[in-house]
């Protein structure tokens, strides 16, 4: 057995970042709870980046656990499977936790409580002898997306293209946001699953080395992962303890910490030979390949002071947040803020009536004490704290000024689109300016403008084409008229009397005569029944 697993490695430090109170202890006191199956599951057809999935079931259909209920549409998309057995109750629009707050077409399953598995594809425990395309096809079938929160289809990320040689495969176990501990607990309790998934990914990508980055505030997870690696005897793979600093779990930040390489702006890691996956995603890959099970459940943290007890749960996708919170004892106080995700980047929720989706790593119910007081923003005093903590080394206050001035060209020249919206700048701002909100606004305005410009370009092209067509038709018409005129003039020279004209003249004369006759009859006999013309 080879054990070169603890050799020291030079780590790189990204600019800025924050040391935040991590609030991780509260939810790691208890083990992951298997919550079972709620009476109703709500499954949005779009819980991934890419095209919305297309339902393959009808209302009233009976489905088994693991059965395909919606298929992927296009390359960047992901299918959905029934998380439990039951009946399709409805396929309709439902709101779901997304910043837009827009409703998404969803499949509702009324569960039957039997939790009965349907037929599953053949398990592939000997994946090392299996064709890579077959493995990719399996991962795609399983509907696996990035479980760290971004929800990008995993099979796409594992197919970087023939021209891109992957040197380094990274597993992201940093979990840098406060409160969230689902990856931590997953690694503590199921490290072997994570390592098995890593082995599958490694076989697909055949990188030179694999690195597992975990923040040093998770010693149990680090130990468990090292143990699992020793048992699996994976070569040139190591667990690397990285200093706890937000946002070290950002993909580009973690890559920099571990390798010292910067992913160029507007590029993906695969462009520099690196692929990075979340540890939870790796476990899901193991389930799909080794057991033949699709992604129908996930581990997530239920945290925040408004809950009686914070805990991690393993829950079926589509379970309502309200039901989940009830399963762990419910609320202690009324939540002041509900957030899906962490406190730094999570999506605010109106209530807990939403389903959990593939990307739900955490549900936070923050008590009034944990919520900062609402204060009006004060003027920026250009103190530069924001620039000091920006992990991308932007100048947040300049972005803010230009966004306020709606000078979107200048905002872009200050590299707005390199902003990862980590929230560090807003966190430290002494004037409490909601900086990230400004950047989101600027980004959406710029996208809208680009969309407008595209539309305008299209309209202009159409207009120009129409003008050209009209001009051509006009010319053709004129040419035709000229021809006719010429022909007529030639004929006019030959014939003096035009029969048509003569006919018109005759008709006019007849009408005149009739009018005169009518007039005459009206003046002579004033017949009560009106006139009768014969």
């Amino acid at each position, binding site marked *: 057995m080879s054990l070169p697993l603890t050799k020291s490695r030079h780590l790189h430090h990204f600019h800025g970042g924050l040391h935040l109170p991590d609030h991780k202890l509260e939810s790691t006191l208890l083990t992951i709870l298997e919550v079972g199956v709620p009476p109703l599951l709500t499954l949005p057809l779009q819980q991934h980046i890419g095209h919305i999935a297309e339902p393959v079931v009808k209302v009233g259909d009976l489905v088994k656990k693991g059965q395909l209920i919606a298929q992927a549409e296009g390359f960047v998309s992901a299918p959905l499977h029934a998380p439990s057995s039951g009946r399709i109750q409805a396929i309709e629009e439902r709101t779901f936790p997304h910043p837009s707050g827009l409703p998404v077409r969803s499949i509702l399953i009324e569960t039957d409580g039997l939790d009965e598995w349907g037929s599953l594809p053949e398990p592939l425990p000997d994946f090392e002898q299996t064709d890579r395309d077959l493995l990719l096809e399996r991962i795609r079938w399983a509907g696996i997306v990035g479980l760290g929160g971004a929800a990008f289809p995993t099979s796409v990320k594992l197919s970087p293209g023939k021209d891109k040689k992957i040197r380094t495969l990274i597993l992201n176990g940093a979990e840098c946001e406060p409160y969230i501990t689902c990856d931590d607990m997953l690694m503590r309790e199921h490290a072997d699953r994570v390592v098995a998934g890593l082995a599958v990914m490694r076989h697909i990508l055949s990188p030179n080395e694999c690195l597992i980055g975990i923040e040093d505030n998770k010693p149990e997870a680090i130990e468990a992962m090292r143990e699992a690696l020793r048992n699996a005897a994976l070569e040139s793979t190591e667990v690397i303890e990285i200093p706890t600093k937000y946002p070290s779990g950002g993909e580009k930040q973690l890559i920099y910490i571990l390798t010292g390489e910067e992913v160029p702006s507007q590029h993906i890691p695969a462009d520099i030979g690196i692929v990075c996956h979340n540890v939870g995603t790796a476990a899901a890959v193991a389930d799909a390949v080794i057991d033949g099970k699709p992604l129908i459940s996930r581990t997530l943290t239920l945290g925040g002071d408004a809950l009686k007890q914070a805990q991690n749960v393993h829950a079926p996708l589509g379970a309502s947040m309200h039901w989940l919170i009830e399963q762990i004892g419910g609320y202690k106080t009324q939540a002041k803020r509900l957030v899906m995700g962490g406190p730094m980047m999570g999506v605010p929720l109106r209530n807990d009536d939403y389903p959990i989706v593939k990307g739900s790593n955490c549900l936070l119910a923050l008590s009034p004490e944990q919520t900062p007081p609402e204060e009006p923003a004060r003027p920026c005093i*250009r103190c530069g704290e924001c*620039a000091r903590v920006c992990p991308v080394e932007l100048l947040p206050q300049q972005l803010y000024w230009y966004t306020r001035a709606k000078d979107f060209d200048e905002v872009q020249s200050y590299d707005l689109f390199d902003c990862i919206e980590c929230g560090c700048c807003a966190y430290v701002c002494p004037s409490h300016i909601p900086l990230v909100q400004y950047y989101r606004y600027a980004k959406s305005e710029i996208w809208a403008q680009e969309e407008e410009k595209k539309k305008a370009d299209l309209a202009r092209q159409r207009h120009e084409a129409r003008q050209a067509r009209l001009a051509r038709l006009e010319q053709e018409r004129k040419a035709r008229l000229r021809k006719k005129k010429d022909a007529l003039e030639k004929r006019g020279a030959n014939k003096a009397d035009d029969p048509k004209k003569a006919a018109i003249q005759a008709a006019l004369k007849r009408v005149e005569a009739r009018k005169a006759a009518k007039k005459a009859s009206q003046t002579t006999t004033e017949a009560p029944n009106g006139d009768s013309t014969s």
Partner: protein
Amino acid sequence: MTTLVSSPHDWGRHRVQQVMLQVLLALTPGIAAMFWYFGWGVLINIALASASAVAAEALMLRLRKRPLQPAITDFSAVVTAVLFALSVPPTLPWWMTVLGMLFAIVIVKQLYGGLGYNPFNPAMAAYVLLLISYPAAMTHWLPPSVLSKETIDLFDSLRIIFSGTPPAGGWDAITMATPLDQMRNGLGQDMMISEIRESPVWGDFGAKGWEWVANWYALGGLWLLYKRVISWRIPVAMIVSLVVIAALFSLGNPESYPFPLFHVFSGGVMLGAFFIATDPVTASTTPRGQLIYGALIGVLVYVIRTWGGYPDGIAFAVLLMNMAAPTIDYYTRPRVFGHREDEHE
């Protein structure tokens, strides 16, 4: 009902108000030293300037139809007032202090849009206005108490400031040229520095009294650095550049160009380096920009003191560099993660 606010859902507990209070707190050792050496006039000026600054701020907020809160309690006007009061002579007539503060708050600060929008440091702009308009009153400095035979008590100070009547023996009995003035006048009369320094006003490295005021300002400044209220770049760049340029000239001709420590400890350099040049609103904000900004202030201070028309040049140097700050920021943008070094140039 939950509140729907986009992320982040937590804030640090910094406040603008807290920053301003920390600056005021850091000034207290320097204020105490000023009081010790120059008497009640220092405190009267601070009180008078603060009251007029806050009143002017309130008036302008009302005229601009802006809410008084939280702007009036952010202490930014008080910081401006204290910095101004510490820069002017402790005998300045009351109406000049009031005029200075009206100019600083009404014209330099509020007419540009209030806190955060002013391109010039209000305290320094007011100082320069008075220096140009009333040069005599602005250069009537008291000698530090260690050198003075006369003692000026609270009553004398009040009388001098509010009635404008000079003390019994006339201005000359109680006032004295500042060390920078003495050096300047001495050099103007072709005296050698060793001759000039024979006068009893000189201390160990600067002038008696003044050098200790500078030390206490520096102490407050170091505390601000420790608290990360200010960054080290501007003060260090300013002092280092002043020392380097002074050392170059002084080494070349030590009898005509004062030695570097004289420059650092005699005038307003410590106050300027830690409290005035670091005013975030009007200074450069990029890391490299702050180094350039501070260093150029140091150079300008030396140039004005040595070849300019005024004995001290902090205010002019700071205002000139205020003008340059946006340009410096533009050309010193840090390299953004994932971008090449040369992308913006």
